[in-house]
């Protein structure tokens, strides 16, 4: 069978599974819609969290980013996994004990203030919309590259599928589809990685293959360092960015991860506090499988590309180069007409441009793997994008139905709330689809927003809410606003107002806009501490809540207080 048939078959089959699960797990109450009824096993929740977390960017783009940035790419590897340690140790068990449905719920109750809650809702909506637009685009791209349909048609098909299981099934439907999606995406990521590792280093474990030897007995990483420096590039295994910036970006990504609402809500779905802790551990195991393989895929990819393309005669390039040139993901242009492909860091002599996404997308072809593996990668990319999109849509619909409507109309019946949640999810799917079809030019830039904002707004306020009994609403609101405004202004200034100044010498303390969330977080902590010291302590009722969430016993399933 040819590649296209395999792709249709595998993608179609995986979609059938997702829709089947959605119909089987239809949510019938708000509790099921928001937290899957609170009865999900820690293992299943761990898998669902992993699928929720790993987006199209993790699956398709991350390995490629690392391939071209070498050591500097480590910020994503450490940043997007280290956050789970913070989540497990500082947030998940306490928020689970608190036992409500959303992050704004917690902020509103702990800080006895609807104002604080509204600020939290706005942050949650902004972060989630930013993200979901990118996912829809990812779905469209996978469709157009593999199934040879138009990007817009791809986005609409993706929208329909997500609509089906997110709107019908709510958290319950999403959780069990995400378990299936995790299996699809990890299988799709690992199979080509294992094959390539065997071919290059004769070690079937990619994590070890990265430290293995290539033909001729030289270590892969040493050879890569040598080849790159010979071509005039920076060494693969050492950094280019200043240490302060690497530090700040890693911290912002870690803290941002722990502050992302769609990740936090996953821990409301397990029955007990101890399950929340364990579930964070499982989630990180499942994430780590992909995240420790990605650096290997990155090094194998760049090594293979240089080995088989750079310096080769233009008319004798491998077949995959021709295939992917059609998509413009790789371009070869013999500028000096000497018949060979020059690969250099300088724009006027470089004749080879490789898009970062190719490291994962074309890996099966580069390694001459059978056609079904190509179809599998397509299904995996789709699973990664859809699972993340669904988790985000749920946060959006919950924020609207519960945090906005319920706050202002507390007497609303459950049936009505559920209806509003579904309408909100449906509306969000359509808006996200719109951004997928007409992507704003700044999609890549706004990702920095999402993490920066989560780090500078939610994280400090939640931490203080749990670990300090003295923290009051004045402190929390002031802290959130200062962190938020500082981070936003810094990013907007360098990304939109004066993009030409976005270089190291203009940054504060050498921190780029990507890493500024960590400074925003520090400011948030400082402001909320100082303001709370000069304003009255929170009421006794709130102090009792804090004492209560610190003790695991007595956590029922998530409920209304």
């Amino acid at each position: 069978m040819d590649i296209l048939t395999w792709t249709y078959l595998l993608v179609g089959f995986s979609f059938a599974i997702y829709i089947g699960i959605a119909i089987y797990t239809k949510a019938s109450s708000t509790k099921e819609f928001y937290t899957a009824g609170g009865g999900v096993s820690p293992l299943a929740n761990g898998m669902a969290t992993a699928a929720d977390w790993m987006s199209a960017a993790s699956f398709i783009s991350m390995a490629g980013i690392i391939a071209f940035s070498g050591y500097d790419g480590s910020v994503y590897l450490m940043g997007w996994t280290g956050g789970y340690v913070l989540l497990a140790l500082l947030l998940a068990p306490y928020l689970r004990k608190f036992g409500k449905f959303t992050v704004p719920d917690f902020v509103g109750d702990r800080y006895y203030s609807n104002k604080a809650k509204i600020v939290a809702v706005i942050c949650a909506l902004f972060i989630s919309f930013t993200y979901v637009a990118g996912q829809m685009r990812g779905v469209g791209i996978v469709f157009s590259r593999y199934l040879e349909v138009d990007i817009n048609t791809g986005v609409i098909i993706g929208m329909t599928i997500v609509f089906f299981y997110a709107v019908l099934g709510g958290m319950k439907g999403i959780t069990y589809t995400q378990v299936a999606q995790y299996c699809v995406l990890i299988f799709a990521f690992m199979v080509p990685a294992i094959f390539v590792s065997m071919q290059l280093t004769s070690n079937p474990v990619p994590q070890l293959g990265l430290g293995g030897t290539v033909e001729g007995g030289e270590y892969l990483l040493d050879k890569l360092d040598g080849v790159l420096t010979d071509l005039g590039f920076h060494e693969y295994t050492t950094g280019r960015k200043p240490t302060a910036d690497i530090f700040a970006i890693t911290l912002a990504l870690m803290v941002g991860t722990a502050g992302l609402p769609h990740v936090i809500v996953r821990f409301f779905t397990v029955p007990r506090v101890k399950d929340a802790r364990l579930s964070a551990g499982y989630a990180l195991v499942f994430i780590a499988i992909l995240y420790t393989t990605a650096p290997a895929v990155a090094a194998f990819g760049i090594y293979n590309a240089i080995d088989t393309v750079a310096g080769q005669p233009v008319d004798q390039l491998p077949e995959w180069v021709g295939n992917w040139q059609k998509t413009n993901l790789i371009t070869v242009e013999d500028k000096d007409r000497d018949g060979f492909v020059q690969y250099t860091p300088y724009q006027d002599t470089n004749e080879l441009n490789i898009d970062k996404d190719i490291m994962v997308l074309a890996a099966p072809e580069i390694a001459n793997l059978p056609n079904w593996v190509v179809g599998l990668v397509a299904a995996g990319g789709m699973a990664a994008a859809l699972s993340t999109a669904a988790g985000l849509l749920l946060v959006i619909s919950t924020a609207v139905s519960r945090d906005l409507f319920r706050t202002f109309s507390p007497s609303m019946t459950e049936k009505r709330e559920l209806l509003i949640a579904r309408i909100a999810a449906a509306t969000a799917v359509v808006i996200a689809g719109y951004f997928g079809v007409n992507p704003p030019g700044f999609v890549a830039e706004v990702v920095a927003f999402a993490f920066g904002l989560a780090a500078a707004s939610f994280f400090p306020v939640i931490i203080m809410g749990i670990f300090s009994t003295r923290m009051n609403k004045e402190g929390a609101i002031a802290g959130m606003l200062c962190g938020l405004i500082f981070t936003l202004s810094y990013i907007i200034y360098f990304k939109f107002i004066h993009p030409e100044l976005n270089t190291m010498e203009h940054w504060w303390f050498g921190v780029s806009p990507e890493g500024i969330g960590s400074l925003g977080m520090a400011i948030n902590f400082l402001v909320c501490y100082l303001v709370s010291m000069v304003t009255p302590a929170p009421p006794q009722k709130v102090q009792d809540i804090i004492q209560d969430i610190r003790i695991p016993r007595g956590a029922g399933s998530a409920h209304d207080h």
Partner: protein
Amino acid sequence: MDEHKQRMKYYWKRNIRIVLSLLAVWFLVSFGFGILMVEPLNAIRVGGFKLGFWFAQQGSIFSFVVLIFIYVYKMNKLDEEFDVNEK
């Protein structure tokens, strides 16, 4: 009741100690070995890896996983000791 309160205070203190000691390791393997000390560590080689590079791209992640499971184990034991575990 007061005695219970005292006990819960002590439970919380022990909890904080566990969390802080694990976070110290978390900081060390990522920000320490992977970022601040990466250059001196790169002088040490383990197989085909420079050690600093390995910590930044793989070692820190493995450590994170282990840290969470140690936390789960220690907290379950602590909860039991103070009789605040969930039945």
